[in-house]
C-alpha cells in the first residue's frame, strides 16, 4: 500500500515476444565450461543508459570471484561503491559515507537476491543446462565467430515485472564472459563490458574481507 512510489517508475508494457526454436549448443558448451572457473578477476566498464537521461553514464570498476560464494565488486576508481559477499551476507558499502547495508544473499520467491537486484550476474550463471532452462526463458541466441550473444528473461514473476531481458556475450571457446546487460521495461539498460579477464588466479583472502571499523553498518530495508 505504502510502497508504491519507486516501483511506479518501472511500469511499462512488455513487448510481445515470438516463441522460437534455438540452437543451444553454444550455451550448453559455455555452461559446461563454467565448472572450470574456480576464481575470476576482471576489469569492467559499466554503462548506464537511463531513459531519463540524454546520454549514458559510464563508470569503471573491478570484480573478483572465488568459488563457491566469495564475491567483490568495486564500482569507480577509487571505489565509490563496493558490493561484498561474505558467506550468506551481502554488504553494500559506501566508503565515502562510511556506511554499509547488510542483507541476506539468498533469494526467496518474494525477494530476489541482492546480486540479482544490483544488476550483477550470479556466478555461476546456472549449475547446468537443466538449471538454466528452469531459471530462464530464452529470447534470442546468435553467434558471430567465437562470440555468442544470448538474451534471456528470468522466469520469476518479480523479475519479469521489471526486466525486459538479460543479455550476455561470451566466448564459446574460452568460456569467458564478455558483456552482461540488464534491460528494464522502462527502456533503461545497465551494461557491463569485461576486460583483462583472469581465470583461476590466486586471489588473496583479504580481497573478500573488509574492515568495517568506523563504519555504520545497518540492515537493508528490503
Amino acid at each position: 500500500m505504502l510502497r508504491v512510489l519507486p516501483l511506479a517508475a518501472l511500469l511499462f508494457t512488455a513487448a510481445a515476444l515470438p516463441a522460437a526454436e534455438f540452437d543451444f549448443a553454444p550455451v550448453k558448451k559455455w555452461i559446461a565450461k563454467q565448472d572450470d572457473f574456480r576464481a575470476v578477476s576482471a576489469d569492467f566498464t559499466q554503462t548506464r543508459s537511463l531513459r531519463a537521461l540524454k546520454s549514458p553514464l559510464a563508470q569503471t570498476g573491478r570484480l573478483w570471484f572465488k568459488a563457491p560464494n566469495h564475491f567483490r565488486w568495486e564500482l569507480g576508481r577509487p571505489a565509490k561503491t563496493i558490493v561484498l559477499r561474505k558467506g550468506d551476507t551481502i554488504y553494500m558499502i559506501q566508503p565515502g559515507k562510511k556506511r554499509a547495508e547488510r542483507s541476506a544473499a539468498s533469494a526467496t520467491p518474494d525477494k530476489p537476491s541482492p546480486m540479482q537486484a544490483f544488476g550483477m550476474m550470479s556466478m555461476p550463471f546456472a549449475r547446468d543446462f537443466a538449471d538454466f532452462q528452469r531459471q530462464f526463458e530464452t529470447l534470442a541466441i546468435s553467434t558471430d565467430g567465437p562470440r555468442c550473444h544470448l538474451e534471456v528473461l528470468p522466469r520469476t514473476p518479480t523479475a519479469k515485472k521489471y526486466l525486459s531481458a538479460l543479455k550476455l556475450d561470451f566466448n564459446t571457446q574460452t568460456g569467458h564472459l564478455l558483456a552482461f546487460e540488464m534491460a528494464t521495461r522502462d527502456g533503461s539498460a545497465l551494461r557491463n563490458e569485461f576486460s583483462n579477464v583472469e581465470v583461476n588466479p590466486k586471489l588473496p583472502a583479504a580481497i573478500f574481507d573488509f574492515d568495517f571499523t568506523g563504519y555504520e553498518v545497518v540492515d537493508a530495508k528490503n
Partner: protein
Amino acid sequence: MRAGWLALGVAAVVFIAAGLSRISFNVDILKLLPTHLPQVEGLSLFLKKFAQPRELVVTLEGDSAENVEACADEIAKILAAEPQLVSRAVARPPWEKSPADLAELLAYLLLNQPPPQIAELTARLTPENAPATVQATLEKLNDSVSPQEIAMRSYDPYDLAAPLLSSGLMSGGQQSEFSSADGKFRVLYIESAQAFRSYKDTIAWLREVRAKIGDIPVRHGCRLGFTGEPAFVADISASTEWDMKSSGFVTLLVIALIFWLCYRRARPLFDLQVMLVLIFTLTLATAGLFLEQLTVIGVGCAAIMIGLSVDYGYFVFQRAQQHAGTVRELQRLCLQNIVWTSSTTATAFFALNLSSLPGLAQLGNLVGIGVVIGAIVMLTVFAPLTMRFHRRGEMREPSPVEKFVVTPGFFRIGAWFTVAVIVLLLGTLAIKGLPGVDFSARSLRPRVSEAYTALDRLSERLTDERDLLSLVVRGQDETEVRERLTRAEAALAAAKESGDVRGFRTALPIWPDVANQKANLATLAALAPEIPRLKQTMQTAGFNDEAFALTESVLKQWAAWAGRPPPIWPDNESSRWIFRRAAHRGDGQLLAMGMVQPVPGREDALAAAVEGEGVYLVSWSRLGLQLKHVIPREFIQVILGLSAAVLIILGIAFRSARAVGLFAVTTLLVLACLAGAMSLFGMQWNFFDLAAVLLLLGTGTDYSILLLLALRRNGGDAPAAQRELALVIVLCCSSAAAGFGTISWANNLGLASLGQTCALGLVIDALISLFLLPRAWAWLHRPKVLPA
C-alpha cells in the same frame, strides 16, 4: 359478527404484508455480540468502515503465474465492459495504469513533513543550489547499485522524495494486495455498480457476476473463490433463509406425523397446521414491524416457535376431546394451564434481553412474541374449531397410541427407562466430568461458507493476518486521530523494544498533519512559478523532459491546493485506493488503521499499553478471550435471576413449598443429566449452550408445571395426573424436540449447537417430569402412618 371477522381478517392481512415487507437480515456476526465490549466495538468499527460493502473479492489460484495473471486480466476486462453491473473491476494497482497519479500522493506526503525538512527541500531548489542538486543526483545515478534508488532518482532529479526516505514509505515490496510473491495466487476487486437494497439483490448480483465470468477460469486452469462483504451476505443470507424454511417445514411435517399417529384425524391436523403457519406469519410480521434487522440467530426462532406453540394446540385439542360444554367453558378450562406455562416460557425468552448478546436478545423477543401470539391464537381461534368437530359428532375411538400412553405398563416401563437414563448420564458426568468449554468465535461462524473458505485461503497466500492485531484509532478530527496514532505508535515502539511486538505498521506516515500542512502549504505552493527555471537547469545537466514530469506535477499540485484550507487529503483514484483500507472519513468521525504482529501470549500486556480512548487493538482471538471472561458470568446472573422469577411465579401458582421444592429438584436433575449427556456425546459448552439452559428453564419446565397442576386437580392421584397428561407431554416434547432438533443442522454452528442442546434437554425434562415427578409427589404426600 361476520363483518367483524372480515374486518379482523383484512387487518391481519395488512399487518402481515406490512411486517413481512420490512424483514431484512444482518449477516454481521458482531451483531450477535455485546456492543459494550471494547473488542466488539473495535472490530465493528473495523469491519463497518474498512470492509467495503459493495466490493467482491475474487481469488484466483493456479499452477502457473502467467495463466493466473491472464485469467485475472480477462475477468477484469469482461466485467469492466458491464458498467450496469460493475462500477470497477481492478486486477492491478490503479497506479500501474496511470503512474502520474502518484504525483498527488507524493505532493501530499511532502506537505505533511516537518517545516525544517521542507526548508531543506526548498533550499535545494534555489537558483544558486539547483545545479548542484541535479549534479548530485547524476552522481548518485552513476554510483548507486540499488535498482530502487536508480529508478526513483531518474525521475526525481531534485530529490523531492528525500524527506520520505526515513519514513519507510519508499521501501519496495514484492507481495501486494493483488498477487502473491510467486504470482500463482491473485486477487481481483470487483465493485457493484449499484448499492444493494436487500440480500436478494446481493445474491442476484453475485449470480450475474459468476455468469459473466463463465468458463474463463477453466480455460486458464485456475480455481476461483469469492469473498468480501457481498459474498458473505449472499452466502450467509442464502443459507439462513434455507435454514429457516427447511427447519420450519420439517418441524411442521414432524408435528403432522406425530398428530396423525396419535389421533388419526385429518381435519384437526389441517387446522392445527394452519394455526401454526398463522402464528409464525404473525410473529414474523410483528418482528418486521418492531424489531431491527434479523440476525442469523433470530431466524432460528421459526422452528422453536412452532415447536412451542403447538403445545398449546395439543393441550386445547386434548381437553376438547373430553369436553362436553361450550367453547367458552373449554377456553376457561384451558386458560389457567396455558397462561401459567406460556408466561413462564415467554418470561424465559424475554429474559434473554437481560443478556448483553443482542443476537440472543432478538431470538428471545421473537420466540417470546411467538409464544404469546401462539397462546392467544390457540385459545381464541383453535379452541372454537376443535369444538366444531365435537358438535358435529366427529369424535371417534381413541387411537392405539392414545390407548397405549395411558396404560400402567407404559408408566412402569417409562419409569425404569428414565431411571436407567439418569444413572447412565449421572454416571458419565461423574466419570468424564463436565463438558468441555469452547468460547472461541468459532461458534459464531457458519458451518460451510465459500466466502470464509476463500478468505482463509487469501490469508494463507497473500496477507496472513490471522495472528495479527488490528489497530483501530477513532477521533473527531484529523488532529485528534493523529495525536492518538502518535501515542499508539510510541507505545508500539516501546513494546517492540521490550519484546511484546514483532512488528507493526500504522496509518501515521500517511495521516494528514494539519499543523505541518498549514505551515508548509504557502511555501510549497510558491514554487510553481519556478517550474521553467528548474526544468531548464535539469535539461542543461543532461536529463530528458520525461525526468521532470513528476517534479512538475508535484509543484503544480501544491499550487492547486494553495487556496484550500487544511486538512488536505489526496483524492485521485490511486490515492483513494491506497487510503481506502488505511483511513476512513464520514459519519462525523475519522478512523485510522494499523496492523500489529504481537509476540504470542503477550497480547493482553500489549493491549493494556496501547489501548486508550478511541484506540482499539482488536482481533477475533482477543474477542473470544474477552467473551470467555464476560459471558459466563453474565449468564449465571441471568439464569439465577430467571430461576428466582420462575420460583416466585410458581410459588404464587402452587401455594405449596413442597411443590416448588419438587419443581426445583426436578429442574436441577434435568440440568445435571443434560451436562452428563453433553459429556457422553462429546459436546462442548459455547455461548449458545448457555442460552440453551435459559431456554430449558422456560420451556422444559412446562412439563413439570403441567404435571404439578394436574396432581393438584386430581387430589394428588399420581396415576390419574399421568394419564391426563401423558399424551399431551409426549406430543409437546416430540414437537418441541423436533423444532429444536431441526435447527441442529443449521449452517450457523452456534445455532445448531443451541438446537442440539435444547432438544436433548427437553427429552430429558419430559422423561423425568412424566415418569418420576408424579411418583416423587406421591411419595412426599404419602399418608403418615400413626403409631398404634
